[in-house]
């Protein structure tokens, strides 16, 4: 007999392959059987799921998910249309779900981060002091420096493009947000004209922008 349902795994979740021709009722039954059989194997996993091989209406998709959750202890974090390029988004969504709201909570550090020192955090970071050249701040969430940022700041380590970097004095060697890197100009102006103004760095359309931290910009911030 031809298999109507196949379950495959990738690094971040499950891909459920569905037969194109078989009646939907049969497929539902088969999904129930497959997941019941492997319930032990999956235990209480949190997973992203995608369905492949067949066009599904929203109702059908909902039915499938209910079947999966009814017959196993898997928590379906999200459902994605299978798309080769989507695997990265897969990963991010899952990591965000697993690490909780990485950007919403924060960790404080008081003191000057000096050359050679690295401060890493699973959440957001607030530095009460300066980050000197040669020092690094790495956070899964946002980076806020209540002092001068002269070294390297890396926000949104796990790929969160909503992450931002704020500093009272923005003169970084390098800023990274998610997968985008920006470096300082090769010849910095001797006295940056607006050096003493608080600034924010964020991503828009794949570019990192640095702007004065004004009300309008703060309104645009989304903590996810």
């Amino acid at each position: 007999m031809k298999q109507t349902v196949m379950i495959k795994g990738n690094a971040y979740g499950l891909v459920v392959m569905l037969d194109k021709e078989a009646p939907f009722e049969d497929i539902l039954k088969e999904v129930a059987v497959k997941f019941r059989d492997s319930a032990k194997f999956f235990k209480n996993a949190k997973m992203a799921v995608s369905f492949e091989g067949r066009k599904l209406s929203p109702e059908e998709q909902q039915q499938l998910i209910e079947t999966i959750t009814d017959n196993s202890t898997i928590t379906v974090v999200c459902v994605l249309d299978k798309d080769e390029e989507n695997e990265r988004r897969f990963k991010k969504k899952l990591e965000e779900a697993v690490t909780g709201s990485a950007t919403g909570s924060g960790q404080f550090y008081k003191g000057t981060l000096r050359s050679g020192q690295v401060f890493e955090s699973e959440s957001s970071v607030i530095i009460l002091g300066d980050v000197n050249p040669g020092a690094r701040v790495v956070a899964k969430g946002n980076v806020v420096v209540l002092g001068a940022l002269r070294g390297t700041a890396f926000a949104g380590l796990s790929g969160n493009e909503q992450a931002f970097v704020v500093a009272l004095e923005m003169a970084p060697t390098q800023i990274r947000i998610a997968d985008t890197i920006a470096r300082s100009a090769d010849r910095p102006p001797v006295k940056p004209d607006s050096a003493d103004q608080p600034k924010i760095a964020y991503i828009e359309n794949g570019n990192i922008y640095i702007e004065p931290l004004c009300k309008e910009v703060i309104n645009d911030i989304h903590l996810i």
Partner: protein
Amino acid sequence: MSEVIVVTSGKGGVGKTTTTANVGTGLAMLNKKVVLIDTDIGLRNLDVVMGLENRIVYNLVDVVEGNCRIKQALIKDKRYNNLYLLPSAQTRDKTSVSPEQMQKLIDELKEEFDYIILDCPAGIEQGFKNAIAGASRALVVTTPEVSAIRDADRIIGLLEANEITKVDLIVNRIRMDLVKRGDMMTIDDVVDILAVSLIGAVPDDENIVISTNQGEPIVGTDALAGRAYMNIVKRIMGEDIPLMNLDTDNGFWNRIKNIFKSK
């Protein structure tokens, strides 16, 4: 109460040895009993700057290895009776001494001296670790150049990590003419980045070159750098001395102005 001070910088050639020689001599001039230790094993030169090279019989490694007593290795300065030098070995390397051995040596010297000043080698490896092992206080020397400041910053971080919290900064080789033209960082710029207390600034003075080559420390002389070092010495001893004006604009009009000011 004796104080153990390490003079360090990270980068080479910024003036650690010159500072050690002058601060040590200055303290001796003010009647403190001082010993200078050259911890730059293999690249010794504090003895040269002090003009004592020809008197070396035993050295730091000999003391640590037990080839001689501490007293035998200490060289008395030719100008001040209360100033001594413990020279480093030239034929060995940094691994000949361990931080524990340095600590033990310093504990012994503490009994007898008011100030123990350690001339630290450049770098952050074994030699640095040896030099800071027994120290309770540090003088970080830097010049107003980005490379020296970067290294000083790293060094301050390492000192803090090693629980040496009393860290003071000396900004060396300032050229006021360049500062005025905006081509050199000001003292304030340097202090702003490094965020430690400034204990003194020393101008770039050609008299330093002459004094170094002659093996005579400049401190105590009337040269600008000599006065700057004496101020640092007094501040180390806890006196509150204001920073002096390093501006040596001896142009005609300024001299005229000075004449009127002094009246």
